[in-house]
């Protein structure tokens, strides 16, 4: 593995849910890569497949869902070719995940120290319980939990939501992973805590070289955090690129819609833009471009499903009517 091998490279990932009513293509040909110390924002509405993408990487998609195609290269190894034990060794060790709802991620009947120590010892049984406890205490301290010694002996219900999410983050950090997948970890928290956690996450990546995938529907969060951004719609990536490029020159009508609906300084007194309609059911996607029924620029050309194009280096786009002349902007 050379230094420029990305920590994670996802190619044409396909995860389908085989339901009674048909096959729902929750993730349909998603590709992206994240390098060392890099932060990628994965943005989309509810049901766009962003969380399923995260779970697919870890092999944690529950039936009737199944990863049916593509590659997930983690430091050069294809995770989809690993058996259960091989995946288990990576989970919580090299690749950690943080979930959305801190009230639900910790087991209510086990003490915090139990839940932390088992994470250390699942990957290295030679570590003694005392040593694992010391590491757990340090991890709690690292995420800013006061008197970690005392808190280790507490049960999850004795923590507030923000504190629980810190514990979950501390658990994710325990084995110093190379990649963290964070699935809307700040959505359930209030804004001040959210700010602290974002700051700490960013610092961690810069300091330790951990790659981070931050899944969210909140563009404001991504704007202050990520290096690059992938926008998902109905299981597909519709626009991808460096953060500033995409936010400054959004080319896909959907990205423009998302950006237009974020309140800003100069939108005061004006109605915020609203994307008409709602996310289509994955079982009844319109033919052609999945977004065409909600898109103000749709025409005959959108009846055929648009392919991914790469108008300039580092940008990807799935639209036949780009709203910006990307080549022109670049030059």
């Amino acid at each position, binding site marked *: 593995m050379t230094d420029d091998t990305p920590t994670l490279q996802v190619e044409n990932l396909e995860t389908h849910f085989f339901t009674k009513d048909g096959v729902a293509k929750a993730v349909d040909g998603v590709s992206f890569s994240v390098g060392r110390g890099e932060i990628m924002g994965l943005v989309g509405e509810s049901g766009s497949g962003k969380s399923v993408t995260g779970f697919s990487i*870890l092999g*944690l998609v*529950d039936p009737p869902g199944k990863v049916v195609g593509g590659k997930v290269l983690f430091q050069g190894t294809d995770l989809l070719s690993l058996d*259960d034990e091989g995946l*288990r*060794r*990576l*989970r*919580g*060790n090299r690749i*950690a*995940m943080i*979930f959305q*709802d801190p009230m*639900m*991620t*910790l*087991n*209510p*009947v*086990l003490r915090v120290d139990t839940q932390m120590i*088992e*994470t250390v010892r*699942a*990957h290295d049984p030679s570590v003694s319980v005392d040593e694992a406890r010391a590491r757990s205490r340090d991890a709690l301290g690292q995420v800013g939990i006061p008197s970690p010694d005392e808190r280790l002996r507490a*049960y999850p*219900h*004795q923590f507030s939501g923000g504190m629980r999410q810190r514990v*979950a983050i501390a*658990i994710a950090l325990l084995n110093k992973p190379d990649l963290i997948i964070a699935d809307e970890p700040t959505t359930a928290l209030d804004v001040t805590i959210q700010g602290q956690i974002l700051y700490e996450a960013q610092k961690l990546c810069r300091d330790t070289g951990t790659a981070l995938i931050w899944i969210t529907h909140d563009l404001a969060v991504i704007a202050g955090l990520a290096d690059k951004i992938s926008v998902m719609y109905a299981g597909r990536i519709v626009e991808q690129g460096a953060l500033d490029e995409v936010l400054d020159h959004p080319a896909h009508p959907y990205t423009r819609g998302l950006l237009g609906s974020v309140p800003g300084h100069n939108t005061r007194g004006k109605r915020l833009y609203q994307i008409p309609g709602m996310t289509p059911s994955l079982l009844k996607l319109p033919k052609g471009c999945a977004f065409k029924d909600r898109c103000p620029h749709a025409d005959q050309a959108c009846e055929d499903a648009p392919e991914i194009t790469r108008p300039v280096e580092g940008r990807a786009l799935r639209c036949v009517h780009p709203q910006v002349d990307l080549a022109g902007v670049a030059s």
Partner: protein
Amino acid sequence: MTVFIIRRLLQSIAVVLVMSFIVFVGVNIVGDPVEMMVSDEADQAEREKVIKSMGLDKPWYIQYARFIGGALQGDLGKSFVYGEPALQIIAHRIPATFELALAALVMAVVVGIPLGVYAGLRPDTVGSKTIMAGSILGFSLPTFWVGLMFIMVFAVILGWLPSTGRGDTVELLGIDVSFLTMDGLAHLFLPAFNLALFKISMVIRLTRAGTREVVHQDYIKFARAKGLSNRRVVLVHLMKNIMIPVVTVLGLEFGGLIAFSVVTETVFAWPGMGKLIIDSIQSLDRPVIVAYLMIIVLIFVIINLVVDIFYSLLDPRVRLSEIKS
């Protein structure tokens, strides 16, 4: 924790007192034991003597006060039929029933929980569908019929297991037990399994429902995302969460096992309390009936208490809310 236990203890005593009143009054308005005790040729004077000797000439509240006074000293009256202390007659039969119920409980746990967890984890396999269909049979087939079928198949046709009695017993801490000898174990198996069948089905259904609910919780997914082995996820993270309803119901059902092992004891001629109470009801042996019911009440109350304490050990949230309130 101590406050919690003391409060529960006081509540238990109140329940026992109320129950003693209901039981005593209830039993005393049914039938006339004098008719059963005195021969038809007895004259009025003899009848009066018997009534007096049994203390039935006094008003009911005096009888009740005497009964409570005696009960506090461990005296629940003398059997009208046997002339021995009722408590002693019952105590003599308790170990057999207890052993049977305990064996049935162990079977329910050992067989029911693994099958239930399996059926919950893999709901669509043929195996778990078979388990669930089997549990419906376990629920709906009448105990006495299943017992008779067991005797027919395993004792009469196959001749593998004995069908009646306790077999060889050995003394353990002054109590006769069957399960420590091979012969006793063979005698214990069929009646215990017969008694356990219903509970096994119940534990399977309860465990399966719990598993189906818990397995989709985020904390199970998170445990897997931490890289824990499947074994640890199921045995620790899942099991500890589904044990709360299982422990509650099993605890209460243990009382039921003891109280209503009547059918199984009759079918397999198991010398326990169940047969005794049937006989006593038929001969209107009030002290034995009352003593039996009081013991059952006591058993239920103690089990409830133990379950509550277990509960708080299993679920820290129960502990906390109890202390707060």
